């Protein structure tokens, strides 16, 4: 089973890839849009990378629920567990 910390690391790495933010500055409660500056295109890119990385499908409705880093991590944990 994929560890939560591993998921976090992967998401931070994906985020820092296209945001001008150091991975260490991304906290669990960081607001994706307001604090990290994700615009809608950044979000779509993030989702694309997550789908690829974790071999999951993320629906448009689910994307709307991503407010913080933790939301994304929890979502991926749930999805990867469902996929087992």
């Amino acid at each position, binding site marked *: 089973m994929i560890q939560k910390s591993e998921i976090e690391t992967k998401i931070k790495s994906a985020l820092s890839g296209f945001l001008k933010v150091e991975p260490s500055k991304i906290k669990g409660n960081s607001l994706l849009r307001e604090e990290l500056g994700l615009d809608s*295109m950044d979000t779509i*890119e993030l989702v*694309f990378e997550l789908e*690829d990385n974790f071999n999951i499908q993320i629906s448009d409705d689910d994307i709307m629920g991503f407010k913080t880093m933790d939301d994304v991590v929890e979502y991926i944990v749930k999805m990867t567990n469902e996929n087992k």
Partner: protein
Amino acid sequence: MSKRVVITGIGIVSPVGSGKDDFWKAALAGKCGVRRITSFDISNYRSQVAAETPNFDLHDYFPDQKPNRLDRFAQFSLAATKMAIEDSGLNLTSKDPYQVGVCMGSGMGGMVMGEPQLTDLIHTGLPGKVNPNFIPIVTPNSASGQIAINFNVKGPNITISTACSSSAHAIGHAVDLIRWGKAEVMIAGGGESCITPAVFAGFCSLRTLSTHFNDRPERAFRPFDRQRDGFVMGEGAGVLIIESLEHALKRKVQIYAEIVGYASTSEASHMVIPEQSGKEMVKTMELALADAKVPLEDVDYINAHATSTPIGDPVEIKAIKLLFRHHAHKIVINATKAVVGHTIGAAGAIAAIVCALSIKTGLIHPNINYEDPDPACAMDLILQKVVEKKIKAALLNSFGFGSNNATLVFRRYE
């Protein structure tokens, strides 16, 4: 009376050097950027050479830019724009942003990142793996859009895609926009990067590329030479800052040259073969000179379209002879494509930069690889050496697939 339009800034990314100084030094030295292709496995292709632009890194120009949001042609265009703006001394923050526009050319759009999205989808059958950036990067106007976004210029934002003549048309249209009072300053030019497996294969299949010089890449692009056997693809970008003369005079800036004439016509003849009598090319040049109000005998330099194809080069020379008659042999003619390859949507812009620099410096670069003059193209002043000349007026020809022609006329500003 319509406004006079002058060139005040130059930016270039090319296989033989980026920045106007490095590029011009290389062109005058007779350098050639053609090499064996290294960006993908070329071993099964009929043609195996191209002029690739080595060591380009967008972050050298825009440290914070996300490269995955721009395909290579748009990255080239953005870098060339930065150089051109710096060269022109234009302070964009003090300008009304709606008075500065962008008009760029691109023949193929974002193929370097775009093409693998298509080929991978065919391969995998997985639409979910198509990158969300695919559409914004593949569109030919992504370069003009990125330029506007990065420099906050809000005037007309146009992209012209007329294959190999795209950026000559883009510059011509930008000139017209200033003449018509739609903008005071235009960022005009073109960018292209499509030396990619499928595009290259397409040009190979069209039998337009040189195949006899795969072992001697630097000799493959040979305009007007008897042994020419097709063009060689290149990549790069050329950008000019053009503005109304009164605007330039107010800013007290250097003026490279004046753009005095432009014509755009269709041969309405054939998608890829030029009309063989040359009368259509004559017409385009004639209209551009009439627009410029420049008499034939004032033209002393022509930057020819000259793609080094067996069919194309003689038609252009025939047209020049038909139009200029006895004066034709007094005109220095060269082809910049032999230096940088055929950069498709950037070709007209790079040639325009050459016209501007030739007028400004009084030096015309050699027509390289012209070792065995083809009698069908022979002219007195196609030369393999640098020519020193105080140019009065220069003419640039740019012809494109789709049966379309463009001619620009430049004059020394005095």
